[in-house]
């Protein structure tokens, strides 16, 4: 299906188009970028509409030889999980463009080109099923993001950009070693040297090797998610990035890590992953509580949301390593919900900053009366972020906790504590920013039409995910069942080796 490659290459072609002819034509580039990202969204929706799964649950597959000598192919595939994440990526594209409309003051064409190039990288990550191709896109999305942070970011942008790049790069290079190891072991076993995901699924690894290879992949994904000891790039990168960059970082880049766990770590190394699951869940729960506790004491709104992302992604890891129906479904839904909600939160913080010139909670206050529309929409997203029933995050977190509860009640309890802390810091943030006495007297302008439209679209998505998640869950049925089958196929003797 060549539509998958259209999905990947449309943004980068758009980026070239804008980069080449868009210099000093700010208005034109804005509309061109919006047109490209909207087309992308329409294509993604069209693919969703026409999706019909094959036996393995793949809606679309595309296979073209690339470097036959090494067994590298241009192999793209879309199953339920990738479909949902592609939809999220396509949705956040126009949002990021609209948010930057007036916020980016200089060099709009370069900015738009980099934004679109990032989108290409992320799409590629979600669609590639050849490990080298996956790695290519995995690193490709870093570079434009590095420049987005480094050139258009806030005060300490260069430091943040370096930190972001070097952290993620070190992790992914270790993954490259693991990919090559997998390739050669498979080649020696079967005589077929290939990076094809479907072929590699058949591999039979000795225990120690499997563990090391799994760790190679896990480190790369753990940096991106990010899990507890290697998370420190995230608050800096999110805080210093321009609004659109924060939306892509929190909404999409973090998801690529969790997606990698689902797509590669669990199915390729089921035995090692099962042994590792308790450690994974522990790291998840540390992330949940640590992120939540640090979010409590942040003054900077962006930093607060960044730490809350660590907390929410901890839930996702929690659900993935619970490795049952509820946990996996919940993890993917939470990824979607977090993408939409956090994207909207970052967008609104950007709007607040444009109006007030600050993100510090100490300098804000009482904005409910001058900015009623902004305040009420912010309330909606805040409620969603603290998993209010009926809104997006609730379903995901509820399912994750239900899944974890079957494994261990203690872990579930700790996770629930994280939700409670979440309610505290989010409500407190809302109260300090929107309620109370107004501190600054100036001419406030409420949301204009552009901002209302983009936030309205995100609000609809939040409501849809919260009220009627069935269409999304339907897509997950086959992939999740396959993952659970992979777990059940593990010989029982080896379970509990680490518990």
């Amino acid at each position, binding site marked *: 299906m060549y539509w998958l490659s259209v999905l990947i290459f449309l943004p980068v072609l758009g980026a070239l188009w804008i980069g080449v002819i868009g210099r000093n034509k700010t208005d034109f580039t804005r509309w061109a970028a919006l047109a490209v990202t909207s087309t992308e969204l329409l294509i993604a929706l069209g693919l969703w509409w026409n999706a019909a799964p094959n036996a393995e649950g793949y809606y679309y597959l595309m296979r073209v030889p690339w470097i036959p*000598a090494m067994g590298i192919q241009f192999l793209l595939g879309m199953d339920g999980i990738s479909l949902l994440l592609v939809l999220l990526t396509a949705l956040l594209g126009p949002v990021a463009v609209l948010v930057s409309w007036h916020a980016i003051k200089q060099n709009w064409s370069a900015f738009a080109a980099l934004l679109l190039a990032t989108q290409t990288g992320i799409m590629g990550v979600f669609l590639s099923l050849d490990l080298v191709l996956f790695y290519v896109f995995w*690193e*490709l999305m870093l*570079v434009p993001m*590095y420049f987005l942070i480094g050139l258009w970011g806030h005060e300490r942008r260069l430091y943040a950009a370096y930190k972001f790049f070097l952290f993620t790069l070190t992790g992914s290079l270790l993954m490259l*070693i693991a990919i090559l190891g997998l390739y050669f072991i498979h080649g020696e076993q079967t005589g077929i040297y290939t990076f094809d995901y479907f072929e590699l699924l058949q591999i039979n690894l000795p225990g120690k090797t499997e563990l090391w290879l799994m760790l190679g992949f896990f480190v790369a994904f753990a940096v991106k998610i990010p899990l507890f000891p290697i998370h420190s790039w995230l608050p800096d990168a999110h805080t210093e990035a321009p609004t659109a960059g924060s939306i892509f970082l929190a909404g999409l880049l973090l998801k690529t890590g969790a997606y990698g766990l689902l797509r590669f770590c669990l199915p390729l190394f089921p035995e090692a992953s099962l042994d590792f699951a308790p450690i994974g869940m522990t790291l998840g729960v540390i992330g949940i509580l640590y992120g939540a506790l640090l979010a409590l004491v942040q003054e900077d709104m962006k930093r607060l949301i960044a730490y809350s992302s660590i907390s929410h992604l901890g839930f996702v890891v929690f659900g993935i390593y619970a490795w049952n129906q509820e946990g996996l479904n919940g993890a993917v839904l939470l990824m979607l919900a977090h993408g939409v909600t956090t994207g909207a939160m970052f967008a609104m913080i950007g709007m607040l900053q444009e109006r007030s010139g600050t993100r510090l909670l100490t300098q804000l206050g009482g904005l409910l009366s001058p900015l009623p529309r902004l305040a009420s929409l912010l309330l909606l997203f805040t409620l969603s972020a603290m998993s209010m029933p009926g809104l997006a995050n609730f379903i995901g977190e509820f399912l994750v906790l239900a899944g974890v509860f079957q494994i261990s009640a203690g872990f579930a309890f700790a996770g629930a504590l994280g939700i409670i802390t979440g309610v505290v810091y989010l409500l407190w943030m809302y109260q300090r920013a929107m309620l109370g006495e107004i501190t600054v007297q100036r001419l406030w302008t409420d949301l204009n039409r552009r901002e209302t439209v983009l936030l309205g679209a995100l609000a609809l998505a939040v409501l849809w995910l919260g009220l009627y998640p069935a269409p999304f869950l339907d897509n997950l049925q086959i992939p999740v069942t396959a993952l659970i089958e992979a777990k059940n196929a593990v010989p029982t003797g080896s379970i509990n080796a680490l518990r």
Partner: protein
Amino acid sequence: MHSADLINLLPYLLPATGGLVILILSIWPKRVSTRFLSTTALTFLLLGATATLLWQVPGAVGSLLVIDEISRIFTLFFMLGAAAIMLLSFGYAPIRNELHEEYLSLILFATSGMALLVSSNNLVSAFVGLEMLAVPLYALIAWQPTRYGAIEGGIKYAVLASFAAAFFLYGVALAYASGGTLDLAELNTIASSASLLPVAITLILIGIGFKVALAPFHMWAPDIYQAAPSPITALFASLSKAATLVFLIRLLCLQLPLIWEALLPLLWGIALISMIVGNLLALHQQNLKRLLAYSSVAHLGYILVALSAGNSAGRDAAIYYAVTLAIMNLGVFAVIVAFTRRDQDRENLTDYRGLGRRYPVLGIGMGICLLALAGLPPTAGFMAKLFAFGAAIEAGNVILAIVAVINTALAFFYYLRVIGVLFSEEETAVGTSLTAQGPLMVIIIAMILVIGLGIFPQWLLGLLEPP
């Protein structure tokens, strides 16, 4: 001598003849314009490049030279590369008025030396090629002797290169002592019984190590990189290193596989030291040319990672790496040439502040070449690293591969620093306006090749496959 031999010899003869012709033009009674001279030089190079296409492979000239796909590709590449070096020289302001006949003829002689080196099948012809390459470089490095450090650089290079040549010759002598022949194919037949041969090849390896600046023989590199005019730095940083490397690959992998196997631990050690030393020294370097010198020490280390795998994948990876490294370096130096001031290079990184914003094509070209050097997909630099590390893992050198990967991450730090400076918001005073077309052409071609070879590596690999 048959006529076929003559055709085979053409690519070696043409540049050398071109050099002589230009020297004769210099004693012509009437003054010959630089434009005419440069056209003549470029014509000879292009003719030489075309002549390689006439080769019937595989072939040989006596027992001295072997003509196969590797020598064809690299000879072609060196001819075009030398043409690029000339284009760079014409656009390089500090020596613009010093481009006499000798300069062009020295480049032509060096080119035929490189062509000779990559197709040598005999240690003597290799030595001749090596010296034909080295001697013109002594003079070229010290070109326009009034420049600060020019003489110092020239002498330093001359002393160290002769030192290396001495090692090389000593190795050649020992090889003769052990086998009674200098022909590589014959040496291979006695390789299993001659106990002196590994020692001889080790000495040759040390000589080559000096020439390509492998650690621990790298001390000269930063000084000479800095002292030479930038087009000449490009010449020996990319083309001459590639030529010497290809000879090493031919010597070890194609002709003397037994010795290769015996030397694997040594290659392993040199690879490790080169990567670590090169990257650590480059980390805080503030001078762009010195930074590139250290980074290329590290890159030679990665190539040895591939060679120390001791398998055919490692050989192919090393060849691919040698080509792409040469192209990437050429691209970077083309930008340095383009940004040069009227009287001297911009050396400190601070002198490059904001230039990428002002000249987007050059800035993006530099950015792409630097990211390729760092090894970012989908550039050729990534594929080279993928093949090299893959070969190492296939051979079971997992530790070396992991060290190489950590070094790669380290290297990103300093390459990104350069890019960050290029696109920073503050600007240094630009100085002269940039008008030269030659460097611009070179950088654009390098950029296309770096990305093209990254996306379609089989363009190159397919040519190397035996039919």
